[in-house]
């Protein structure tokens, strides 16, 4: 299985995502200005501050040539994971519902949080242990999820901040959502920073494992 990580000018967690993905499969960088997906099985839009996050987080990056490829890949059912800034980019691109707004505190917050997994069937969470919260860090200034009044079914909410853990004021404690077809997923917490107990936790690995398992099943089928 091969992951592709989209690298924009200003991406910061691109290498981290690459290293995390390499724990479960192969992974390559995809340069924002290119238009070749290199035959990857899943795409990760990583965290950071693409284009400095100037104007609005994710607003400029969504127009990169590579993002057009990613949009098409998603329309064809390919798995796309957006982490933090990647989540913002996917919302701006209309691949995910909603928007990310400044934290209620108006401050950057870097903190380990507990997340409740809301679905055991999604391609992104199927390997998560049932009923156990995940310990994964968040780090962002613009992470308050705004859920649109229409166009977000409860089943699209894959992750919520555990009670009392919401770090940014997100609607209904939402930490991660998928699109209607379930193949595009965005979350503010950083699973790629939770893949090794030595650096804090390995709970995020389950997200990468889920993707790998889903792709493997699809290949068999």
């Amino acid at each position, binding site marked *: 299985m091969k992951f592709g990580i989209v690298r924009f000018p200003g991406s910061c967690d691109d290498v*981290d995502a690459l290293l995390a993905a390499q724990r479960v499969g192969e992974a390559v960088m995809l340069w924002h200005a290119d238009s070749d997906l290199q035959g990857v099985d899943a795409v990760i839009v990583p965290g950071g501050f693409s284009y400095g996050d100037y104007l609005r987080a994710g607003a400029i990056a969504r127009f990169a040539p590579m993002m057009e490829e990613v949009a098409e890949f998603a329309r064809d059912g390919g798995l796309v994971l957006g982490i933090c800034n990647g989540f913002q980019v996917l919302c701006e691109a209309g691949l995910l519902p909603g928007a990310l707004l400044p934290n209620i505190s108006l401050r950057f917050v*870097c903190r380990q949080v507990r997340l409740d997994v809301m679905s055991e069937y999604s391609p992104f969470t199927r390997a998560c242990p049932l009923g156990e919260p995940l310990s994964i860090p968040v780090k962002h200034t613009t992470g308050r999820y705004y859920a649109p009044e229409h166009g977000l079914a409860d089943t699209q909410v894959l992750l919520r901040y555990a009670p009392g853990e919401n770090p940014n004021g997100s609607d209904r404690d939402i930490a991660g959502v998928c699109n209607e077809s379930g193949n595009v997923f965005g979350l503010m917490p950083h699973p790629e*920073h939770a893949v090794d107990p030595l650096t804090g936790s390995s709970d995020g690995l389950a997200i990468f494992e889920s993707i790998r398992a889903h792709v493997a099943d699809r290949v068999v089928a």
Partner: protein
Amino acid sequence: MEYELILAVLGRHPNDLELAMFSLMWSEHCSYKHSKRLLRRLPTEGPHVLLGPGENAGAVDVGDGLAVAFKVESHNHPSAVEPFQGAATGVGGILRDVFAVGARPIAILDSLRFGEPAASERSRYLLERAVAGIGHYGNSIGVATVGGEIYFDQAYEQNCLINAMCLGLAPHGRLIRSAAVGPGNVLVLLGALTGRDGIGGASVLASAEFGEGDADKRPSVQIGDPFTEKKLLECCLELLEDDLLVSLQDLGAAGLTSASAEMASKGGLGLDLDVGRVPLREPGMEPFEVMVSESQERMLCVVTPDLVPDVIAVCDRWEVLCTEIGAVTDNGRLRVLDGAEVVGDLPVAALVDECPMYNLEPEAPIVSLYPSPAPVLGGGETPAEVLLALLGSPNLASRRPVFEQYDCIVGSRTVRRPDAADAAVLELPGGAALAISIDGNGRRVACDPRAGAAEAVYECSANLACVGAEPLGLTNCLNFGNPEKPHVAWQLVEAVEGLARACEALGVPVVGGNVSLYNEAPTGPILPTPVVGMVGRLPDASRAGQIGFTNDGDAIALVGPFAPSLTGSELAKLRGAAPAGDLPVMEPGAVREAHATVRDAVCAGALSSAHDIAEGGLAVALAECCVAGGIGARLKVRIDDWVRELFGEAPGCAFVVSGAEEVLGPLGRVIGRVGGDTLVIPGALEVAVSELRAVRDNGLLQYASSAVWSE
């Protein structure tokens, strides 16, 4: 006076541009004219040193063909004017120093000093905005801010200190120097457009050059652009990776003037530089404005002519502006051209080496230079009340409200985050790890500059020992008042002597640093504040030590020589004592031995926790171990003189460690046991860990004004 000297070395009157260049290069900031002689006292050699002082950052070997480059630098004056941008550009500047030597920045630490937050709204504002600025730059560029320190004292009310340290990693082969090489080679400017940023800062120029009405055109506040620097950083590292550069230098204070003069001077060569080719952000800039502009996010490099197209290609890919602005010459002159016209022509040696050096005239003060602080404690408190007052005091309270605003994990190396251990720990590719600590206690240095400065070195080394790391090298930033004043000169001379002796005693070389003088208000100088940043290595990241008590039933031991006293302590401060008196005398050999004992035990995986006893003394150290681990402790030793024994300080020499009793016995004196949910010191105090935590958590939080803008 200095003008006469310029006449002598030049043999003629300088023109306005040349005078501007001289006045910048001969400023304290660039020439170190009051400190250079003194700095020679610092030991700079050691088996691991790869780059010593003189380069943009020092570097030491960390094994496996890797080098770690690091430096600490001040941005005090700009931050006092505009704390957000001042602190942000301080981080931007120190990052450039590190990637200027070819290292990828992997960690930032910050050392901050402000006035008393309870008394001063301005100090709360400076704290809020400086922290936001540091976070803004470091978070956006994707370099983890893994540690730092903050002290509050009224002596910093008018002069806050913002020191930032950066540490980077490079394969040995990628390290590069800044010396210009090879006449005929091309001088290339990389990065941001040049605007009128920071020109007002060169105050010497104000009278000579600026008409009244022009003031507005010359913004002195520099705005940091981490996005541009991120691209510049990636671009420079790729250029080095592809072996396309001959030399590399960042643009910092005094912009092109300083960068070009330094490059030429180090290479013993000359440079021709055409200001007409420098890409400008604003129309109509004069040559001198281009030469002194302090616009951020720019680098200067030397490239062989045949490789210029390759350099341009890499820059294009990263969307980094890249302009040929001159050439290396062999005539030893820095010639400034504006197209075909020569607008300045100076001998490099005169500019860089012939700045007059001044001898300090130190004189020890007879009475303390600093007034007594307003007392917070009267003296009638119980030990428990004293402990809680200390834990909740601004200097000891939890730094969580600050460090949560920093991304401490980007890079996937952070093994010990803030609050988890005494030093930050970053994993290296081969399974070993780096440990970093930054420290400096101005109150103690004010009491006794020589001993206080030595303590800063000891404490950094002790912090490293707590995670199991052996020191490899250190960097320092000397923040002092006006060196032309004899008492300040004395502080400076004594502090450098103390640093030098401590470094010699521990065998740690100084590989770089920075000096910030004239931190003075009409009410007097800041506390003398040498800040030490130390880097060490531990063989096995998975055995990095941590601070919190963990196992019910573990023994607690006191390791190392411990002779606490109240002089210069936090308790003395809370009781309203001026920073004066003799600090405890530490025997360097015993300190070194204690550090080795703890370090070896941590490396062997023999301890559950390790923590050095610093500000607040033994009781505060124990409380911190309890809070970090969420478990209580009970001492079983008799306390006779509780004020001194529990709250006296002797930083950098003694430790509180926990582990199995049979392991601890040979290391030190077993004084108690881990367990329960209270901290019990028989005959003195008994406080619930939850209460310790609550008080410690709220100490700084209560002064955190709320943010108004989201950056």
